[in-house]
């Protein structure tokens, strides 16, 4: 159609031509502006715009990583993972009317047996792209009902998710811990570095301490949504989760089970003897290396209940009854009573206050001795006469140790120094959170306590009977005498006592107790060994002295007249053990803390056991039988409940 210009061109009026040209130039300028703008948007800032566009329509949902297992020393599962059927709500499917939502929540509450108020709370606001889990382990009847009435429950989905499971329920609950969504307050903790809000993390015990190994790496699911936030159903690339690593521990499942049963038995014995017996704890250590063979505390919660995706307030309160979250083996410091006497003996022998042959503790009358006008008596006012150290330990003669305490006071903090060197008054360093420090009182300690009290409670012009002297008052000889028998202000955890006795058992090394052994992958391949700190040798003492003390403990446990001979006399292995019956601040005999700490030597499997029963009465009557059960299990002997009758402290 294009013809060659073979003729004259049509003349265009010059003014018109000019105006058309101007219009043409204008068009060129406008096209240039648009092309420059296009170049700027699409080429220069294109990548940023792509990112913005993607952020507009892609929502990411974390795919929870299956948690690593917690294993005992033989590879038996203490905390595992199972697939659970859960009922969850997809927020985008909920009815928009608030009234219809409320009635839906009521119906869901009935069907799933959860209070509707809690459903409302969990789903307000409901703006998550990941389904919000309401309940795991739906009963089959409820499942059938929900299936049949699907149309009545818009947004309800049933799915399988990986849930933490503890096959032995409350076994070592405080030590293993439990898992749940991270608290906002905990987001900054070093243990949870990099954990996003809403993630499931370990909340106590090993689950908390070793969370970074167990947690794994969440996967990422990407969901495309449209402008109104509705998923389009388009599949986007997902990153699969990486399962957490397994944690192998030093615990022995069988001993752990027996330990829990034994302290329950100890509480039962306390009840039998008309003591409240409200709580109990035990620790079993390898005295040579500090490995925790078993450890437990009662009452305990069931971590399976608390690790559910959705825990009702009622269920939580029920589990928390009796301060069950407190791990009394490491987080509760108690007066130790006579279990402290061997520590006093080490101090006195070392300082030269006594020799093994020194005869002390004679009482003028009624089994009582008087210091600074204050009377200190044996339990039940028994008069054992003057005795040497072995005998004093065998029968737990208070007056012997009162005299040692009185003489030690003249030389300063002799006992305190040794107690501290054996690990009292400071955390043992076990790899568990919330360890208690305990108290080893001396002159400066009471001064500090009073100063702290004054700072906290004594304001100027304020009337308070304890101001300005302070409730602890200046240090007296009486306080040192009480300390010598594990009374007064002395407080120690069962774990601290087990560590102190381990030093007696291993010939003078302070061990750092530890539970984690190694980190493994799911095939059992070693990823990281977690050896505890090496035992620290204590200042070398006279071996003969140590032998004297051990001999006294052996006589106490397994010789006629020994304080726990009625429990351990019939035990077929050598046991070094000491009872303790500690008066508490209430000074009410019903509240006496029942203690037993024992060492059973073995060439390959030595063991130190500490047992304490809160408000459990005499050490021999509640704690010692429990300790015997634990030792019997460890050495594969018949587990027999042998009740003690000694009323010696």
């Amino acid at each position: 159609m294009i013809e060659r210009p073979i003729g004259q061109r049509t003349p265009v009026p010059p003014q018109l031509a000019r105006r058309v040209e101007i219009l043409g130039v204008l068009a060129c300028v406008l096209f240039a502006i648009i092309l420059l703008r296009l170049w700027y948007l699409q080429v220069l800032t294109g990548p940023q715009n792509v990112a913005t566009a993607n952020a507009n329509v892609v929502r990411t949902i974390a795919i929870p990583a299956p948690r690593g297992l917690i294993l005992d020393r033989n590879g038996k599962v203490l905390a595992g993972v199972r697939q659970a059927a859960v009922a969850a709500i997809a927020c985008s499917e909920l009815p928009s009317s608030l009234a219809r939502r409320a009635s839906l929540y009521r119906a869901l509450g009935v069907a799933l047996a959860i209070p509707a108020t809690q459903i409302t709370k969990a789903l307000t606001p409901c703006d998550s792209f990941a389904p919000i889990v309401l309940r795991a382990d739906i009963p089959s009847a409820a499942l059938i009902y929900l299936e049949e009435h699907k149309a009545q429950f818009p947004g309800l989905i049933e799915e399988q998710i990986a849930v933490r499971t503890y096959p032995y329920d409350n076994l070592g609950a405080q030590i293993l811990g439990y898992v749940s969504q991270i608290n906002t307050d905990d987001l900054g903790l070093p243990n949870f570095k990099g954990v996003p809000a809403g993630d499931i993390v370990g909340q106590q015990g090993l689950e908390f301490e070793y969370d970074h190994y167990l947690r794994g790496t969440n996967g990422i699911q990407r969901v495309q949504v449209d402008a109104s936030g509705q998923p389009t159903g388009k599949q986007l690339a997902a990153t699969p989760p990486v399962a957490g690593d397994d944690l192998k521990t030093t615990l022995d499942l069988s001993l752990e089970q027996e330990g829990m049963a034994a302290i329950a038995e100890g509480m039962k014995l306390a009840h039998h003897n008309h003591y409240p017996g409200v709580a109990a704890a035990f620790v079993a250590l390898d005295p040579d290396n500090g490995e925790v063979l078993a450890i437990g505390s009662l009452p305990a919660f069931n971590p399976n209940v608390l690790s559910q995706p959705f825990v009702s307030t009622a269920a939580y309160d029920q589990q928390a009854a009796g301060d069950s979250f407190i791990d009394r083996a490491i987080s509760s410091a108690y007066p130790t009573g006579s279990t402290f006497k061997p520590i006093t003996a080490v101090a006195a022998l070392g300082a030269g206050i006594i020799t093994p042959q020194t005869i002390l503790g004679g009482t003028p009358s009624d089994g009582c001795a008087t210091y600074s006008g204050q009377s200190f008596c044996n339990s039940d006012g028994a008069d054992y006469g003057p005795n040497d150290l072995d005998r004093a330990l065998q029968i737990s003669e208070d007056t012997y140790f009162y005299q040692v305490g009185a003489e030690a006071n003249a030389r300063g903090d002799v006992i305190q120094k040794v107690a501290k060197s054996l690990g009292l008054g400071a955390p043992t360093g076990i790899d568990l959170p919330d360890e208690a420090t305990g108290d080893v009182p001396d002159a400066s300690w009471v001064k500090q306590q009073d100063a702290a009290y004054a700072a906290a409670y004594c304001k100027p012009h304020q009337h308070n009977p304890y101001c300005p002297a302070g409730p602890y008052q200046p240090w007296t000889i009486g306080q040192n005498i009480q300390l010598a028998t594990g009374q007064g202000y002395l407080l120690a955890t069962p774990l601290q006592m087990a560590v102190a006795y381990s030093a007696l058992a291993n010939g003078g090394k302070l061990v750092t107790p530890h539970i984690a052994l190694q980190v493994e992958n799911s095939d059992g391949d070693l990823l990281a060994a977690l050896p505890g700190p090496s035992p620290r040798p204590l200042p070398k003492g006279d071996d003969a002295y140590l032998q004297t003390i051990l001999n006294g403990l052996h006589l106490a446990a397994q010789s006629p007249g020994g304080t726990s001979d009625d429990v351990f006399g019939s035990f077929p292995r050598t046991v070094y053990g000491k009872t303790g019956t500690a008066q508490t601040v209430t000074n009410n005999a019903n509240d006496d803390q029942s203690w037993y700490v024992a060492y059973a030597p073995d060439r390959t499997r030595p063991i130190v056991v500490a047992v304490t029963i809160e408000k459990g009465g005499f050490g021999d009557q509640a704690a010692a039988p429990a300790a015997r059960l634990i030792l019997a299990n460890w050495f594969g002997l018949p587990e027999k409940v042998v009740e003690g009758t000694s009323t010696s402290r």
Partner: protein
Amino acid sequence: MSTSALKPRSTAADSGHALAARMAIGFDPWLALATVGLGICSLVAIHGAAPGYVSRQAVYLGLGLLVMAVMSRFDYSRLREFKWGIYALLILAILLVLALGAAANGAERAINFSVVSFQASEFGKVALMVFLAAVVVDSSRRISATVLTARVMALALLPALLVIQEPDLGSGLVYLAIAFAILYIASVNWRQLATVAAIGVTALTLALTVGPAIGVHVLHHYQEQRLTGFLHPSQNPRSDAFQQVQSVIAIGAGQKTGRGANATQTSLGLVGESPTDFIFTVVGERLGFVGAAVVLSLYALMIWRALRIVAIAKNLFGALIAAGAVAMLMFQVFVNVGMTLGIMPITGVTLPLMSYGGSSVLATFLTLGLLQSIYGQARTAAAAKGRVLRF
């Protein structure tokens, strides 16, 4: 002008040549190429944004081609006789839309027949360019230039204000642009043009700033917001300003070669009205700089050809109609594309041929048919005078 000896008008060859000339040169092939190309681009873009609209748009385009073909064979000069009839029809149609809108208790831009709706303001553009061109041609020798300018602007302002009330701000502005362009090509002197432009700018400023301040709303509130919205983007997804922001992101995300089927902004509703006012956004996101450049090139071709037709029209009437057409095309292309790029306010003008919608497509084809007719007449006249038009 004298007849040339180069092409002697031999009687035998004459009729055959004239026939051939009529067959061959009745159509501007470049304009036709741009038209068809944009039609194809429209179908491709709508297929990406809203596949459900493709078949209807194809029907509109097919119908439009037919309208254009018929129009190109029609002697546009005869329309001069019917100018008042055309104007009356234009005003009546707009009033009818307004009345129906009032009856429906809401905004109306179209007369709804059960199957199709008829958007009078779109066809009004064509009617107005023909009418104003006729007014200028018929009165230019008898009245002063000032009176003519005032008359043309007044005659354009009436339908413009009416369609703005419909509310169709975009078409109203197009009307004014058409009137201005016709005066411009009619060789009205620069001072008068500058006066008209100054009055226009002042009026718009008053309507947007002073008016609302004293409680007089010449424009609907949302029209005010749209016109000023691009200056301060909003985060409200339902607001027009948000759409404009999303449109800019969408086009940018297209990068050099486009996101194709992975486009999200225009297919997942972030940019609403993507098949209609934001069709260029679809091109930008799905086909990238390359696709956008192709579309813009076709418009450049179209505008170039239209300008050429202004220059070669055989009479002033044709040149003025073509000037109106150029104004309409340029205004709509730059305002619409500028809006999608975030450098122009949202006025609701469609992108000629690309935007989905029967009225817009058919009105554009009607305009293109007029252009072809003017071109064809110019060629015939030139051939009759023994001249050959060069492209």
